[in-house]
């Protein structure tokens, strides 16, 4: 039996959705027989693979780096899953949208009484002015709302996808669940 190639990525999130994924505990072992985790913050691999069956995306699109990443992920993924509220709605990362990126940076880096206040611009990627949910940037195939979605919901959704079905998540999770 060929295993389904699965990837997980995180953009602007808190990694809580990944934690919830790990919370499926024992079922992870059963899953392990059916999947090949080809890319993830949890595994050691630098580049996103050429062809992935299912990718779970945690987090909203907040920076230039997120943007480049999600475009690449989309191009190499068959079924893209918006995984958790940040990916689905923008959630907490998008709270800054009503004030804009610049005022956030100013407040954090320039207004406090620091020795040499400056906005970091080396190494860290530039923030987008507007944080977006994943589907506002690239097409998304499955949405799993929840902050984070429960382990049960994740297991259900993944099992359905592995079995070649579209998961019906209504009544299993919701925004903010």
């Amino acid at each position: 039996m060929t295993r389904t190639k699965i990837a997980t990525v995180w953009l602007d999130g808190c990694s809580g959705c990944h934690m919830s994924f790990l919370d499926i505990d024992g079922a992870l072992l059963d899953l392990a027989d059916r999947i090949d985790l080809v890319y993830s913050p949890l595994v050691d691999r630098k580049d996103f693979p050429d062809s992935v069956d299912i990718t779970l995306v945690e987090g909203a699109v907040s920076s230039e780096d997120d943007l480049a990443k999600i475009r690449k992920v989309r191009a190499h993924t068959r079924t893209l899953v918006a995984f958790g509220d940040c990916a689905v709605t923008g959630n907490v990362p998008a709270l800054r949208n009503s004030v804009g990126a610049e005022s956030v940076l100013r407040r954090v880096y320039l207004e406090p009484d620091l020795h040499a206040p400056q906005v970091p611009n080396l190494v860290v990627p530039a923030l987008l002015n507007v944080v977006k949910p994943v589907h506002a940037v690239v097409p998304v195939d499955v949405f799993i709302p929840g902050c984070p979605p429960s382990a049960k919901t994740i297991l259900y959704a993944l099992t359905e996808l592995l079995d070649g079905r579209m998961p019906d998540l209504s009544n299993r999770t919701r925004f903010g669940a």
Partner: protein
Amino acid sequence: MTRVVTLKIDDIDATGREDETVLEVALEHGIQIPRLCALEGLTPVGACRLCLVEIEGTGRLLPACTTRVAEGMVVKTNSERLRKYRRMTIEMLFAEGNHVCSVCVVNGRCELQDLAVRLGVDHIRIPYLYPKRAVDASHERFALDPNRCVLCTRCVRVCGEIEGAHTWDLMSRGIDSAVITDLHTPWGESDTCTTCGKCVQVCPTGALFEKGMAVGEMTKRASFLATLAASREDGR
């Protein structure tokens, strides 16, 4: 004298008094119609448009909450077309404000959130508008977070019709519409507010809440309204 009429709602034979609305009669027969602005005990205003139904022979959609039943009426409450419009309405509400369920006091007990689940809204296709709206936490016991307001005007109505204080009202128009206290002065400085808290209890979302509540801790209790309304009617 009010007559009793018979009608069909979703192929169920229903009876109602002619002074009842389609919504009231539907509920009496166990038929749920999605709704947000309507609340038993308050004058219906037909604003949210979620309860729109198809009535044979009218050619247009009518709000169940304001439309009176009539003899021989044939009502459809749940067609594919209505479900589509309702989903879009919910999406519009989410896109219009800044609804962040995960950090809201009524997370898990919110009528907007429930409606999204019920109508199968799992993401918002239309662009978020991200308005900039200031929180008013000047009142000693309650607070208003207009980011979560859906402009159902339940607070305006309960304050005017039931409490008789008329502290709440609307200002501006269109997408800039907002609920305000008195003449847009801070709630805490209001000299009409009686601190009865009815507005907080009828608010369907976390826009009006009691201070000191953390995420998901607040439960709204609007049931007092129906009791009040009923006893007032008896008293008359």
